[in-house]
Structures are given as structure tokens and as C-alpha cells.
């Protein structure tokens, strides 16, 4: 099972770039890497997904090195509303019973 490890918490200031790294040493060939954002009292919300190299959307970028044993979520110019918990999920969508969320990284953005 591809377990994930993330920092428990991170602090940042508005306007800065934030990079959150997730380690997944046992990632399998068919596994994708997905990041979710969760606000208090809400369900997780999809941010970005990738398999290898770099993926970018309107919200974030995801960097995945060639060995795929880690991944980095990059949030450009964070704002106060980005304060949330960010989860790294590694898994094969064909084997959903094996999907494992990481412990999550609590990002606190200060003014």
C-alpha cells in the first residue's frame, strides 16, 4: 500500500508561494497522485492530479520527480482563504479500497 507522509503544519503569509511536499516511497505503477483541500466543516475538494512530471491548473501546480516517490503541491501567491488542510492521496482508481489519504498538512496563512 502506498502510504504517504506530509508535514503536519505550515505557516505562510499572504502573497507568498507555498510548497507542500508529500512522500510516497511505495507508489505503484498504476497509482496517480491527487491533492485535496479541506476547510473546517466541509468535505475535501479536489485541487489537482498528476502521474508524472508537472501539472498546472488555474489553482496550483504539481511537481512529480522521475522516481515518483514524492510530489510537491505549489500554491502561488496564497491568500487568507487558502488556510485549510491539504491532503495528498496516492492510489489506483480501479482499486478504490486501497486509496489512502495522507495525514494532511494544515496550512495557516497570515496577513
Amino acid at each position: 500500500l502506498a502510504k504517504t507522509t506530509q508535514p503536519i503544519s505550515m505557516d505562510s503569509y499572504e502573497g507568498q508561494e507555498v510548497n507542500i511536499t508529500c512522500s510516497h516511497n511505495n507508489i505503484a505503477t498504476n497509482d496517480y497522485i491527487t491533492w485535496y483541500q479541506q476547510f473546517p466543516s466541509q468535505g475535501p475538494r479536489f485541487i489537482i492530479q498528476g502521474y508524472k512530471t508537472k501539472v498546472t491548473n488555474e489553482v496550483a501546480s504539481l511537481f512529480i520527480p522521475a522516481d515518483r516517490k514524492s510530489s510537491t503541491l505549489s500554491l502561488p501567491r496564497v491568500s487568507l482563504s487558502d488556510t485549510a488542510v491539504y491532503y495528498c492521496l496516492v492510489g489506483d482508481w480501479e482499486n478504490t479500497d486501497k486509496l489512502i489519504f495522507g495525514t494532511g498538512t494544515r496550512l495557516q496563512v497570515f496577513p
Partner: protein
Amino acid sequence: DTAVSQTPKYLVTQMGNDKSIKCEQNLGHDTMYWYKQDSKKFLKIMFSYNNKELIINETVPNRFSPKSPDKAHLNLHINSLELGDSAVYFCASSRVKETQYFGPGTRLLVL
């Protein structure tokens, strides 16, 4: 319109009772899921169901059973509730092999 909805939002009940949580999605997805998030914020998948197949996380007690009256609904039934069942339960849905959309969660407290 809410994409994935759950009822009730809060559920307080006594040990030993049987309760149900309802989930509905209007996204036309063919796969639905139930997750449990405990007090430490660990998010674990319990079930996934796509009309053809129910996949159960082997760690889930058989007191928990999902029931799908139709493609848009996946309800969670819990028998003989225990104190350790207190958690937030999230429903999610997706197209096959695509990312998941989560509901707002149901906060269950067993007294």
C-alpha cells in the same frame, strides 16, 4: 444546486441504536463512496459502489452496510452503534477512474 448532498448534517444517538445516513449526487456519476474521518482527521475509505460492484475496506465492521436504491443514492446503515463510531462521515462520487467529489459530511456522535 449541491452536487453531493448528505442528510442529516448532525446525528446524535445512543449506543446500540441503528441509524442511517443518506447521500445523493446529481452529477451523473456512476461510482459512489463512503469515508470516515476520525477525531485525528484521518480520512479513510469505507466503501465504493458502482452499481456492478461493492468494494469494502476490510477494516470496516460488518455493522456498516451501504445500500443503493438507485444510481444517484448510496445510503449508509449502521447497526448497534458504538462509541468508536463517532466521527464525520463523508459521501463522495465520481466517474469511473476519475477524481471524487465530496459531500459536506455528517457529524455522528454516539453517547
